């Protein structure tokens, strides 16, 4: 589904990703761990199409297409979803009209009929229940004045509504209490099918108690320096990152 080969990315002339390789197949969950500043958010953003990054080498294919040929909205319509580490506040745009517009853009892309207000509300209320959100949030402006946990739930709500093929969760677990964390994990587990895949960027192993990854990768100094199964997360939890040889070198 997603194939990243030797990806090199710079920001304002500073290389951040320095030859990253990753293969993701349908049905898989990949966890990406790594120290702060190692490039996890940069990778997430570049997959979602955020402007301001310079791709200096390598290639990324999504469903057989060159990802860089698609702009952010085309990627979203093709099933890529990024749950932001720091969700953006949008005063003056209420959550309902935002979500309705998003759903209908994606339905339109798939040749489906747009949802009317009644059908949309019915659908959204069911999804809100799934992620444990009060329907009162529908009337509020997108993320404005939401607590950290509420913003993260709102991200998962959007993911539940848009049903992506490739979901990327960028530290969705940080700042969450254990109940919220479980809700997020349940959301992902319910969405999980044989056809879709997830990249779960996390700092902590605890999320991986609830979302069981098929692979764990360590990103450090702009490269994946170690990959393994779910045991790797436990090992990292115990020993930290310093024992990995390339980390010492990268620092």
């Amino acid at each position: 589904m997603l194939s990243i080969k030797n990806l090199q990315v710079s920001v304002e002339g500073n290389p951040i990703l320095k030859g990253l390789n990753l293969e993701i197949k349908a049905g898989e969950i990949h966890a990406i761990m790594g120290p702060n500043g190692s490039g996890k958010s940069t990778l997430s953003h570049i997959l979602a199409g955020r402007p301001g990054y310079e791709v200096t080498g390598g290639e990324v294919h999504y469903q057989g297409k060159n990802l860089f040929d698609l702009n952010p909205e085309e990627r979203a319509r093709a099933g890529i979803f990024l749950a932001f580490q720091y969700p953006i506040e949008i005063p003056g745009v209420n959550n309902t009209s935002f979500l309705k517009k998003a759903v209908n853009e994606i339905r339109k892309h798939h040749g489906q009929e747009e949802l009317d207000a009644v059908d949309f509300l019915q659908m959204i209320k069911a999804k809100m229940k799934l992620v444990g959100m009060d329907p009162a949030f529908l009337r509020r402006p997108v993320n404005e004045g939401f607590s950290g946990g509420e913003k993260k739930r709102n991200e998962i709500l959007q993911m539940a509504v848009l049903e992506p093929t490739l979901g990327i969760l960028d530290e969705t677990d940080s700042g969450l209490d254990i109940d919220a964390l479980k809700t997020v994990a349940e959301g992902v587990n319910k969405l999980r099918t044989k056809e879709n895949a997830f990249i779960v960027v996390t700092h902590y192993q605890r999320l991986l108690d609830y979302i069981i990854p098929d692979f764990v990768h360590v990103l450090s100094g702009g490269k994946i320096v170690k990959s393994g199964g779910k045991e790797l997360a436990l090992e990292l939890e115990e020993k930290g990152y310093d024992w990995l040889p390339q980390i010492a070198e990268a620092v």
Partner: protein
Amino acid sequence: MSIAADTRTRMITQLDEWQRQAQGNGFFQRVRSAARERLEVIEFPTIKNEDWKYTNLSPFFKEAFQFPGKSPLAKNFDLADKPVFENGYRLVFVNGQYLASLSDIPEAPEKVLILPLTDAVLNHQTQVENILATVSGKVADIFSDLATACLREGVFINIPRNMQPDKPIHIFFYSSQSETPFFAPVRILIHSESGSEATVVEHYMGEDAAIYHANPVTQILMDANARLSHYQLGFESNHAFHISRMAVHQRRDSQFSGWNVNFGGRLVRNDIYIKLAESGSRVELNGLSIAQGEQHIDNQIFIDHAAPRTSSRENYRNIVDDKGHAVFTGRVLIRQDSQKSDAQQVNKSLLLSESAQVDTRPQLEIFADDVKASHGATVGQLDDDQIFYLRTRGIGESDARQMLTHAFANEIVNAIPDEALRNFLDDAVQQRLGEQKSVKDAE
């Protein structure tokens, strides 16, 4: 001679001719000739005048506007396709002239008076005179004197003590395309007596290509404890010149809420003067302007805190695209004896193109020591992170921009208390921004 002086001479010549032929009772004649005399010594302002620094009138001087009466009255005019409000009293003016046949006002008014000015001067002359004498705007202002020198068309509203009209009062000014550009001075006189409460909407609309000079002058007198919600909705033609004057005189504990919306017009200049004349009076002014193409929209507000414990809130927003130009001047005067007063001013502008222009000037003059006064002005662009966030949810870039622009406007629109008006304006914003988007998408 300069083009400004030429224009003045031409207008005065036309005015004298008009005055000779105009009918009207003695009262009208008196008021007109006093204004005519003042015109002898007033020139059109130039950009050297501090108050007109950012508004150049030269496009205005290029048009030869015909005086009232000469403008052809649209005979087959009807309201069918016009956005009039169902729920309300209605006064309709076409090309500056009152159309009784399309208006809907109380027939034998006993309490609330809603009348065309020409009727009001017959039976309620003292009340009309009272407003004209008490509520004054800026002295030596050529646009109000021009309007007064041909005073005739307009509206007189009187809300008696403790009365609350059962419906809002809508005044609809429509301008249609005509062979010659015309001058449409209208006068809106409102007296809110003590303890009364009312909603008045001045709604200006012009046919797409119509060229005219709308020159409304509004004078509002508010007695103790009166409340008034007042809307000026400007949907003039993109070729029109809309130069309005409004003065409000507020007595003890009265409350004025004003909404000033400017979407249309080639050149718009609104001067608002609020006199908080007695203690405890409060004013809240909200404004939303959208300047696109080559539109120029200039709002000049002067709030005069002339008594203790008075309060003012100004919240004006501009959306400027293409080669549009928005100007905001917010002068606030807190006089020496106006202790415990409170003035807040906010002006935010959103620039959507490289060539869009905004000039914003807060002018605070504070002579009392125990007061609160603040002002804030921001000029910015759409937020790239917000655009990206929306796009990652499948929303196309130009839709995302439009949503965010609309959201910026909504911060004003959503605060409108009247639901019908709020919905009307919300649609109007969407439409105005949408039209622009479709032009750009087509390019």
